[in-house]
Structures are given as structure tokens and as C-alpha cells.
């Protein structure tokens, strides 16, 4: 596989994206608050989509450079290699 090419140093990327990341986190926090204060929250507390959102949030807390790929897999149907049989 081709060598990785990331011209921007980490500090520059952090500088450029910090406010965007903060805004995205607030957006997410407010979305989750809105779901939880809506009527009938108990009925969706364990909805598969919410469970997957919690799993994805866990992935964000772990170190690494493949978190986007791991979050994608949380929201993906499993593949069965014998699908054609």
C-alpha cells in the first residue's frame, strides 16, 4: 500500500479544526438530549440505532488512526462469504 501522505502537522490540523470539532460535539450532545427529553424515550432507549451510536462514541475515545473505518463497520451489515451458496 502507498506510503501515507499527510502534509499538515498535527498542531496545524488541531488549530484549523478545533472549533469545528467542538461544534460537532455540541451538535451531537444536543441531538442526544432532544431524543432523551422527547415523549416515549423509554421505548427507544435500546433501539439498535442508539446502541450503535453508543458503540461509535466508545470508538472515538480509543487511540488510533482507523476510527472512521471502525465507526463505518459498526453501522454495516455483516458479510457472509458463502452468500452465493
Amino acid at each position, binding site marked *: 500500500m*502507498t506510503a*501515507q501522505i499527510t502534509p499538515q502537522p498535527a498542531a496545524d490540523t488541531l488549530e484549523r479544526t478545533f472549533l469545528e470539532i467542538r461544534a460537532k460535539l455540541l451538535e451531537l450532545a444536543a441531538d442526544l438530549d432532544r431524543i432523551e427529553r422527547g415523549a416515549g424515550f423509554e421505548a427507544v432507549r435500546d433501539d439498535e440505532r442508539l446502541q450503535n451510536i453508543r458503540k461509535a462514541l466508545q470508538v472515538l475515545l480509543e487511540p488510533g488512526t482507523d476510527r*472512521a473505518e471502525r465507526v463505518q463497520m459498526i453501522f*454495516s*451489515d455483516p458479510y457472509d462469504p458463502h452468500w452465493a451458496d
Partner: protein
Amino acid sequence: MYYIDPHVHMVSRVTDDYERMARMGCVAVSEPAFWAGFDRSVEGFRDYFRQLTEFEPKRAGWSGIQHFTWICINAKEAENVSLAREVIQMIPEFLDRPGVLGIGEIGLNKNTRNEATIFQEQVDLAARTDELILIHTPHLQDKYKGTRMILDMLRRDSRIAPERVLIDHVEEHTVRLAKEAGHWCAMTLYPVTKCTPARAADIIEVYGDDRIMVNSAGDWGPSNPLAVPDFIQEMRRRGHSEARIRKIVYENPLEFFRQARNFQFTPPDTEPTESAVGV
């Protein structure tokens, strides 16, 4: 910078879009055949293929954009196997028309048996007629499974050269699979359901700039026909060289398209010939 949008459904866009794309540096588009938002009859497909090969190149030309196209029955309407087979029988009528690059966008939508059957029949048609193949991979939770199924089917057909196939709509969890199988890949910059310019730039930084391109997949849904210039801007902001950006948005699509039997492209900086200048 000149660029090519290698996947955009211009029949769903207005002439003003061509004009704005041209002003942003777009010199060519390639337009795969797709779902119109409703299921059509065989004759409806014939009219659509005529639109793609007759009127759309003319309309693109008004803005100085070269128009290329792909012919097929899309995965969604392929669920109707008998209709799909009638359409497949008609496709060869259009394959020798100017601007036709191959069979596409074929693929899977909900990963069903019928979709897989018709996918394989269109891969067979491409093999028999020596056409390039452009592949639509499913969206959202169906993408990973569907991409694996598509790669399985391509691997099983020994007539298919991997470098003559483009796997479209790749994202973080499917790009490696497509590249390792030897195919070309494309990333689609589409609001909410697909990739953003920033994530597409990330994928380039991780997987390199070989055999990969970006497109807007602009269509009748919420989409942005100027998404490729957004990607160019994102790459520039990060300090990527003009040469690398040009490779992804211009040279790579040309390198893939040049394998098509029918491909004839006039580079934008070509001096006009005397006959074209007139007197």
C-alpha cells in the same frame, strides 16, 4: 485548475449547472445510466439511452464541456429480472455510439439475489463486448456487504481485467478492498449519506493517489454538482501539491477512460485546428 467530474447525472440538472461547472474548470463529465426516481418500461430505457448519447452531449457542448456516458440497467430496476433482460438485449445498439465508455453504473442496491443475477449478466455483456465497467456500491449499512459480494462476483469471472473496472462510492471501510483487488476506485462527495471533501482528502492521505478519483454524483436528489472544486479547495488548504490534486481530478479519470474502445478526448489547451477556427 481543469477537472473532470467522472460521475454526474446531468439529465437531472439544469443548463446553468453545466455553465457553473465550466466556470469552475470542468472540461469533461461522464454520466452513468441510473434510476430516474420511478421504474420505467423497456421503451422508457431506449429513450433514456438516446437522451444520454444524443441530446446530453450537445447540451454539455454549449458550455464547452465534453460529455461521456455509460449504458446499463441500474441495480434498483434490475430487481425486475424479465424487464432487465429485455433492456440488456437492447444495450448493444448503443455501445458503438460516440462518447459511450462502457457498462454502468451496474451494481447492487439492497444486495438481493435478483440484483446479483442481473449484475452478473451485465458483467458478462461487458466481457463479450470488451467494455469498461462502472460499479455502483450500495449506501449506508448495505455498502460493506454489497461491496464484498460485488468483488466476489468479479473475481469469479476470469475474463474481467481488474484495471478495467471502477468501483464507485468507496468509503473508509471499502476503499482498501477495491484497491487490493486491483480495481480503480471513486469517492462520491454527497451531502449526509456519502463522503465529504475532508473525508475524501483523508482517504487520499491514507491510501495514496493512484487509481482513485472523486465525483459529485450530482443527480435529482440533494447533491452538489460543484463538489469536485470543493475537494480541490480542501486539498489545497492542507498543502497538497497542485500536481497531486491534478492527478486525482484530471489525469486519473483520463487514464481510466483511455482504456475504452470509444474514448476520444480533446485536451482543453489544444490549439484549434484551422477547420475548427473557420474563416
